[in-house]
Each structure stands twice: as C-alpha cells, then as structure tokens.
C-alpha cells in the first residue's frame, strides 16, 4: 500500500511545474445577497391586499376546496419505481429479418446496437431509461439469416432461432455513458473524448449476463457450448458446426467486457478531423483502462 508520502512524491515528480496558468485562487466568501431593489418599492412585489399580501395563501396544490389534482388521480402500483427500472425497447425478429433483406443491416460484420440504430428505424432514448434492445420472438419461425448478433436482452426461443441458422447471439450490458457513445458513434467521436471503459452490469442484472443459457457476455465459453447443444436437442435442429463454417472468424468475434467498439480500445481518442487515433502511453492510463 502506497503511503501518503510516496503518493505525494510521485505527484511532485509527474505533475508539471507550478505556473500562473495552472493555479487557481481560493474562492472568496460569498456574502449573503440583501435584496435592495430600487424599483421594487411600495408593495414589494406582493400586489394589493388579499391573501397574497397578508401571507395567508393556502398550501401548494390547494384548489379552493375541490379535490386537488394530486389527490384526484389514483395510485397505480404497476408504475412504482418505473423511473428506476431499466427498459429495453423491443425489436421483433421479423423486423430484423426485414432489415437484413432490405440491406439496412450488414450481415458480413457483427450486428450490434450501433448497426440497428444506424438504420434510423430503431431508436434508443437514454433519457427514457432505455438500456438497449430487446429482441422478441415474433418472426422466429421464419428467421433465416446467419449473423453474429449482440443484443441487450432476449429469450431462449430467439437464441435457438439464431443458432439454428448457423449464427451466434450474445447478450451484453452497456452502462448509460457507453450506450450514448454506441448509439451515435459519429456524434461521440466528434467530441474527441477518450473512449470509455464499459462498466459491469448492476447487481440485479449480473446474474442474467453471466448465465450461459442467456448467452451472457460474462459467461464461460465452455458453458455456452454445452447450452448450444442442449438447445439444439430441445428444439430439434441439427446444430451447425461453427468451426467448419468459412465465415467463422466473423461469427466468433466478441468484444472484451470493457470494450465498446470493435477495433478500438478504451482510452483511445479518435480525431476525425485529422483522421488520427491517439493512444495513451503512460502505465497509469493503460492500467486504468485495462482494469
């Protein structure tokens, strides 16, 4: 464990020399503002007579006697804590097949949330507590595309439908900050900030994303292989051999749990204007972004 002295010495060694451009004065004590407006004399913004001037106005929400709005509307327990719950806007397998058929989504590269948002037909709104895409079962019977798919939520039937056609599915969690970058990468790169390291899922989601039956990105690969066999037996299809497939390199591509974009690591800064990618070199940065 580093002592305070060691930390201080390290800081002194690594930080730049103190100069006028990198020091800040201590904030002065702010005095309490006394309201002394010349224009607001006589009634002092209160009007004439009545409750307003006499400081006898009723409580906030009172409507003169009739049942106020906040008591009129009944409580509905179904929306309890709705503002804290994660939402995954649905996308049917039918829609996905349609996107593929119409060329809106490229099947030769891994399909993740960015590809789906780039179609312009699927929107994820972080302010509405959206955490990604939920691929639903409608259209599972007619699904016929071989893809490397990455979604945020899905069910067993969907997984079976994708794997039956020789594809792979992974469920992956993105925290809101990373999700914002993923939804609109161009907007994110224009800001030229470092690519964030993806955070782990919250406790209630950890079980889902570490389970092989959900093809979670934190699950073990051997367990996933066992689950693939189990699902093939359950739904009665011959499991296509991924290793024998010529397109298997693309199908086996997976992002690291901390990685946001394929081909880019956290900590890198993309400079679109000069068409450069800047990478950190200091060991502290590298350790932080790899942790």
């Amino acid at each position, binding site marked *: 464990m580093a002592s305070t002295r060691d930390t201080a010495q390290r800081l002194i060694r690594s930080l730049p020399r103190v100069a006028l451009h990198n020091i800040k004065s201590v904030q002065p004590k702010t005095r309490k503002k006394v309201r002394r407006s010349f224009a607001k004399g006589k009634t002092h913004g209160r009007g004439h007579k009545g409750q307003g001037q006499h400081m006898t106005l009723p409580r906030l929400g009172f409507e003169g006697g009739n049942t106020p709005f906040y008591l009129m509307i009944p409580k509905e327990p179904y929306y309890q804590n709705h503002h804290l719950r994660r939402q995954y806007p649905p996308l049917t397998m039918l829609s996905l097949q349609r996107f593929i058929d119409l060329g809106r989504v490229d099947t030769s590269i891994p399909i993740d949330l960015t590809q789906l948002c780039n179609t312009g037909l699927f929107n994820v709104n972080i302010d509405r507590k959206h955490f990604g895409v939920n691929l639903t*079962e409608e259209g*599972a*019977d007619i699904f016929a595309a071989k893809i490397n798919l990455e979604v945020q939520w899905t069910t067993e*039937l969907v997984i*079976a*439908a994708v794997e039956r056609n020789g594809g792979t599915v992974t469920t992956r969690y993105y925290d809101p900050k990373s999700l914002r970058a993923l939804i609109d990468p161009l907007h994110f790169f224009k800001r030229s900030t470092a690519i964030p*390291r*993806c955070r*782990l899922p919250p406790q209630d989601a*950890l079980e889902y994303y*570490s389970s092989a039956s959900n093809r979670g990105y*934190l*699950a*073990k*690969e*051997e*367990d996933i292989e*066992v*689950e693939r*066999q*189990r699902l*093939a*037996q*359950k*739904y*009665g*299809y*011959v499991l296509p051999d991924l290793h024998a497939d010529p397109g298997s*390199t693309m199908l*086996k*591509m*997976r*992002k*690291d*749990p*901390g*990685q946001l974009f*394929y*081909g*880019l*690591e956290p900590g890198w800064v993309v400079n679109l204007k000069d068409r450069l990618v800047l990478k950190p070199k200091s060991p502290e940065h590298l350790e932080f972004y*790899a*942790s």
Partner: protein
Amino acid sequence: MQRMTSVCRRLSSQVWSSLTMQTIAPNLSAFAASSSTTCKSTDAAEPKEEAQTTQQFSGHIPVEELEFSYSRSSGPGGQNVNKVSTKVEVRFHVPSASWIPQDIKSKLIELEHNRVTKEGYLVLTSDKTRKQMLNQADVMDKLRSIVFKAAAKPRGLTDQEIQLRDKRLAKSKEETLREKRQRSMKKQSRGSPSVGSV
C-alpha cells in the same frame, strides 16, 4: 494481462481486461477456474462426443435421423391459422433406429401401438402453440418421454421390503388361524354337554 495486438477478442482466447467472472466473483463455484462445466439440463441432453451405449438410452436424440414435416394447424385463429404451417409431425422407423437400444424397441411399439404405422414408423404430432419452433420442441419432448417410459425397468423389491411383506403375511396368517380356532371353540361349546366333558 496479456495485451492483444488485434483489438477484438476472439472466442477461446485470453481476455485482456480484468473484467472476467473469475475476478469479479471468484468465490462462486460456477466460475472457479478448475471447475468443470455445469449443465443442469432437465432435458437430459448430453454432448454428442459422449458414447451412446446400446444398453441404455441417454436422452440424446440424433435429429438428423428424424423426418420432420410441417402443415397447417387446426382450431381457431383466422388468417394466421389458415396460412401458417405451425403443426409439426415427426416420424422415424423404429426397428432401424440406431439410437434406441434393441431391447426396448418392442416395448416402445407395444406402448405406443396407436402411434406406430404398419411399416413400423412412429409418428408424433403437435399443434399446441402458435409457433412452429415451440411445437417442434413439444414433439421432441413427447418423443423423449416416450422412449424413457419404454426404457424404464420395473422396480424390484428391496430386501427390506421383502422382509416387511413376509412379516405382514405371517402376521395375517397367524390372525386367520387364531380366528378359526376361536370360531371352532364357539361352535363346539354350542353342542349339548356329553358324559365325560366338563
């Protein structure tokens, strides 16, 4: 952690960040480095690599040896039920099936005689749900349970059970004899007393 030169992780390769379940939750047995794979499957499916003994049915059904056919389901449902082929039928020739042990084939045909054709094909259908895939799963489930039922051996009695049974039989026999004796005494006492008896 080894840093990879190519910046996307391929399956079965080292993860470069420390975000693996082994580092997050090392105490969980499922993610211990030395533990073998856990598969709590109730469908009794085992990897193809495991050898199928001819003596026992392991639960694994080779899907390539089954013939599936799809047709329209019955029942209400409007345009959807009229147009979509959601009914699943599976058939296979029982005597030539390599995945069923020989000794249970006759038992299987006997148990499911109403589902076996003259040629020896076992035919199962399902139009339980709206989805073809779910119906196919249902049909696989039916098939698996049929084969398991045919393979089930009658349970023999244990030594304890035999002992208990014999003990109870002996006791009931003793009781019967006791009643016979009592009845006999009763009948004898009804007769008029003879000279020499008390």
